[in-house]
């Protein structure tokens, strides 16, 4: 199963995605963490997510760029969080893929799908605030939008989480 979980900030999408992992009960679990800890606020967010995962038996692998090099072989379920961070890293970090980020990330996703039984990817809706950003940010929105679309094409299920409530946009709720 390949499931894409998306939603706004603070919508409860991480909690939902972790719940999905536990429901599938396909161990061992790997958490692919993509948030680069560049300041104190990131550290706090990371700590909050770690606390949420405590006692859920996840191994954690940090992957800030170069997803296709991440080795998840042997894992039953992989939870990648979050695509918006990974995309930003590929765009803005020194060793990032820049304008090749879409293809590079999709290569990584396709490889992960062959390595594990279930892949759950958390992404983010950053497209509807009606603000016109400068070129760089607009490009980021464009790349992430394209990645989300192409992930959704591949996915068995696409779920949007609205204030903790899952809304199924693609797939069969009872499948898998």
């Amino acid at each position: 199963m390949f499931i894409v979980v998306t939603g706004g900030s603070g919508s409860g999408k991480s909690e939902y995605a972790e719940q999905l992992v536990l429901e599938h009960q396909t161990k061992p679990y790997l958490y692919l963490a993509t948030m680069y800890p560049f300041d104190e606020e990131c550290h706090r967010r990371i700590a909050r997510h770690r606390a949420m995962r405590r006692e859920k038996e996840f191994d954690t692998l940090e992957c800030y760029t170069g997803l296709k090099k991440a080795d998840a072989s042997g894992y039953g379920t992989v939870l990648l969080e979050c695509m918006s961070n990974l995309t930003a890293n590929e765009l803005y970090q020194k060793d990032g893929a820049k304008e090749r980020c879409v293809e590079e990330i999709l290569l990584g996703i396709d490889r992960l799908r062959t390595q594990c039984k279930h892949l759950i990817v958390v992404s983010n809706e950053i497209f509807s605030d009606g603000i016109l950003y400068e070129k760089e940010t607009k490009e980021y929105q464009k790349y992430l939008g394209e990645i989300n679309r192409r992930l959704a094409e591949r996915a068995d299920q696409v779920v949007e989480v609205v204030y903790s409530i899952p809304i199924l946009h693609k797939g069969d709720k009872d499948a898998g």
Partner: protein
Amino acid sequence: MILVTGGCFQGKKAYAYKRFGILEEKGVDGAICEMEALYSAKLLYHFHEYIKRMMEKKEEWSLARLKEQNPEIILVTNELGYGVVPVDRFDREYRERTGRICCEIAKEAKEVHRVICGIGTVIKGG
């Protein structure tokens, strides 16, 4: 408790008045009301603005108190968080906090409605 959410200018308030048979004058504006009004209002709109004022005044949020004192309230709120991470720290915390509080409320609510173009979809209960 009932939660009505959706983007701005989608007709959430009008939908809620009509759907739940509440007179407009009974609606309380969360952007300007007394903070205590939350615990007696039949319907409170601009709940996201209420949360923002709560943060500015550094007031505590307690779902337990709301459940105890006003369990039948209808809350109408903008759905925030569908944009790029804001540059301003307070803005970031505000949209995050609104999300977390609305998740708590949605879990507790007997119904959650989401309004787009004036059309409501029941996404929980109902």
